């Protein structure tokens, strides 16, 4: 199960967060901060995996992608395949790119509502809902 999806910029500002098991607002912020703390100290050209048990509790993994000024982060448990999660981040990013034509951080900041709609078409209650970005875009368009 996917436990959280976070998009934050390289200064640690959250741009989109969604927690699939309920966390209090304080806990959410603490998690965002710790994730950022770990990610900002990682070099380029290292793996996309981080040991995460110490922050999110036992049996959690973290996969992230660093693109331009943004981190895309998925936190999940051992029932998911790490690389498949990384692929899903890529689908998410490609979908955004198609929706916003060369997506940049500003698009994400000012299209907060649309970001939610897009994510909801990809991840549903912590499960992978759709993996085809064409299908996601179709669904998002149909609901306006």
């Amino acid at each position: 199960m996917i436990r959280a999806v976070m998009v934050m910029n390289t200064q640690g500002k959250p741009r989109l967060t969604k927690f699939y098991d309920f966390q209090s607002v304080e806990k959410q912020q603490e998690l965002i901060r710790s994730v950022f703390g770990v990610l900002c100290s990682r070099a380029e050209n290292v793996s996309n995996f981080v040991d995460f048990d110490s922050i999110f509790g036992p049996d959690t993994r973290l996969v992230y992608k660093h693109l331009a000024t943004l981190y895309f982060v998925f936190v999940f448990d051992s029932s998911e395949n790490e690389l498949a999660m990384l692929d899903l981040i890529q689908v998410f990013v490609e979908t955004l790119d198609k929706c916003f034509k060369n997506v940049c951080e500003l698009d994400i900041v000012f299209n907060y509502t649309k970001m939610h709609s897009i994510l909801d078409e990809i991840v549903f209650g912590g499960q992978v809902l759709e993996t085809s970005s064409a299908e996601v875009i179709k669904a998002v368009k149909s609901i306006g």
Partner: protein
Amino acid sequence: MAMTGMRGLSVFISDIRNCQNKEQERLRVDKELGNIRTRFKNEKGLTPYEKKKYVWKMLYIYMLGYDVDFGHMEAVSLISAPKYPEKQVGYIVTSSLLNENHDFLRLAINTVRNDIIGRNETFQCLALTMVGNIGGREFAESLAPDVQKLLISSSCRPLVRKKAALCLLRLYRKNPDVVNVDGWADRMAQLLDERDLGVLTSSTSLLVALVSNNHEAYWSCLQKCVKILERLARNQDVPQEYTYYGIPSPWLQVKTMRALQYFPTIEDPNIRRSLFEVLQRILMGTDVVKNVNKNNASHAVLFEALALVMHLDAEKEMMSQCVALLGKFIAVREPNIRYLGLENMTRMLRVTDVQDVIKRHQAQIITSLKDPDISIRKRALDLLYGMCDVSNAKDIVEELLQYLSSADFAMREELSLKAAILAEKFAPDLSWYVDVILQLIDKAGDFVSDDIWFRVVQFVTNNEDLQPYAAAKAREYLDKPAIHETMVKVSAYLLGEFGHLLARRSGCSPRELFSIIHEKLPTVSTATICILLSTYAKILMHTQPPDPELQNQIWAIFNKYESCIDAEIQQRAVEYFALSRKGAALMDILAEMPKFPERQSALIKKAEDTETDAAEQSAIRLRAQQQTSNALVVTDQRPANGTPPVTQLSLVKVPSMASNADHNSRDQGLTEANGTLSIVDPQPPPADLLGDLLGTLAIEGPPGASVQPGDGIQSEHNVISGLEGLPNEVDGTAIVPVEEHTNSIQPIGNTAERFHSLCSKDSGVLYEDPYIQIGIKAEWRAHHGRLVLFLGNKNTSPLVSVQAVILPPSHLKMELSLVPETIPPRAQVQCPLEVVNLRPSRDIAVLDFSYKFGTNMVNVKLRLPAVLNKFLQPISVSPDEFFPQWRSLSGPPLKLQEVVRGVRVLPLLEMANLFNSFRLMVSPGLDPNPNNLVASTTFYSENTRAMLCLLRIETDPADRTQLRMTIASGDPTLTFELKEFIKEQLVYIPTASHAPAPTATAPPVAQPPSTSTASNDPGALLAGLL
């Protein structure tokens, strides 16, 4: 740049972006929240558009980290709006802001249901999404049939059906009864015939959830899964939009193979053959290519295929093919693949016998230990540890030692423990083992736990050939200019016991040994002084003929410590002094320690625990665990020195009852003194072990000496169980072998340690045994706490008769939500526990937990980490605030002062960190004296409300084992409890010890605990039963 439809929201977001700092942001947010609150108050004037805009703003503010505790009703009410845009906002915001237990949700059930059964497809989607995200039990019961209908309906579009599948999954997790196995198994199989890959992916996720609980019922799905896999692997009938970088839906391939791993075996030879053909194709047809995304996708499939091959326990040929592949992966440029390659090699080691093949890649794995990525370094360490055996131990351990100096601090403790274990398990000769451990202590003393040096002492004691060598090595290290305190301990111990074997060598005369050891005394802690005193007594005993000058020197030291404030040191000094005046009798009393009985290494046990900590709930891991423990049983029986295992009784020289009774009457005074020595448990666990180790030394002896037989045995028994890390079963006869236990189910890991670590953090594992893992997650807010217990069944069959009862101390109000009587196989249930703190107290709540597995009834009593410091909130105060407060709280009972002795020696900075970790905020520089610390915090309870607490610690740079502490607050009980609490932390810092569960409220000062003080603490009482 596309803009969102709502101008107000965009303006607000740009305002926030333009804020220069957090303070400005806060002001802007407060202004907005104020505005929204006023607008919501007279709701009549609000247009649906405005409502929608405000609710979005609330969600945005919530993401920024501000609590939005109003407007929930407005968000929920939007769900029933007739038009799509408002309805959409209502659903999205509700599912992000509210949790499943929120009361308002109940109000929406009817609307949600109407949307689900209605004809509007977009409304159906919205409703399903919300239920899928936050639907609870009530939703499960009232909506499951409708959701099932949508999923199997032939008139519904895939867009709706794929959501219905995942929504049903959520409802099933909330209440497994909503899916009727008999009726649903066939439906599930039919769903797998689906052509639409979106619906098929969701349905497969649903299948994974169902089979993980009950694979038998879904047997018919097995063949379907293999069919799906074949279709994808052959790329038949896969539409373009589901081909990702040329790979037919990697997610669906992965999910299908995951589902197959929940079936224990595949019997049908035809299905098996087709599956292996597909797997073979995946294993052989995957190459590392230039495109990163393509690589990730194809390897996601490949690694899942590997996992499935391991699960199916394929013929050895296929396994070595897998290892060959992995060997290729760990050397590629792509870091993700290196990482997974190492991880999967480790996993493979645990399930099959492929060690020899993996060893061929040893050089490459050692290179990975120097990878720039810490994630990869950790995996490499795990793998090296797993693949080590007699043939390569020397190489691997030496690599680890070399790496130790440059390793990240985060890894050093694990690294040194692993090196120590490997050295012990696979040492080609024992002198090498001694070399390794001493090097470890030398290079990373801070990270070497007591167990490690205890173990080396045991080995040396049990192997006569090794003794001169070890003593000589210890002597060499003492010449180094600055050595770690652990090195002082182990050298002093070894030289005390075996130093006389070196007598002819230069620099090793008794006098020289004494003076070089004595040089270290001024810099060491209390626990080490105890060891040094014993060493002096031993040196004295071994000096034959006696050297009067040396004798006088040592007696002077004993004399000096006879008035030491530390009871343990004082007692040793008095007794050694008295004993050493007995002349020749001293020889018998202080004779060499007897051999330790053979036993399983506490270190290995510890490592086993850390391994199983991250227990994965997959079939593979489960099997792996069984294998590890088998391996351990084998090592356990391996005699380290060729001598057959001996029972404890044969080792202890027990005087006969008669002679003892006789002796008792003559020399009662001393008997009593000795009796105390063995019973006294004066130090917190690590030192306690030490006390026992050395306690025996003074007690053990022939009938001539004053010894009570019971004490001797008990003390020996303590040594064993203490070092073992097994519960201390003190019984009069003490002939029960240590390994034997009445309770056949043993916890994994040290439960006491888990408790201690949870006292300073908010999530982790509370308890684990082979069947269940209990995790805990806590949130604290003022005097309220919300803990969630995660009860995870690790088995393929259910745990029944599950019962959890909270035994709260009188100062806590605790309410545990209903715990289900049965935990389904491999399922995890969450049980929230609400805590309210009524008043300050250090008492501890206990969870009385029991379950039945097969014929085993397991009952454990676990201390819950709802401890005093959880109700603290650090607060920083300026000097202007601090001093007036400090002065206004004058004298007892509001302000208490105490001199604490026997403090664990800590640099001031570390002490400050310790306070901070317990939420006492240290204000650096507030006290002008650099040897002092000042800290402040707020304590919350229902009685005291928020209460400011101030603390001052004055340390003595000349004697770091004592300090003066002053605590002030507006409540006498609080001041007292906090003082005691802090004292406990200063005197006892939970380290990786393997002592029997220490009571959290153990008296901190080195004085014999009276049982009466412990008995009014239910936690302490019950912890004794653990």
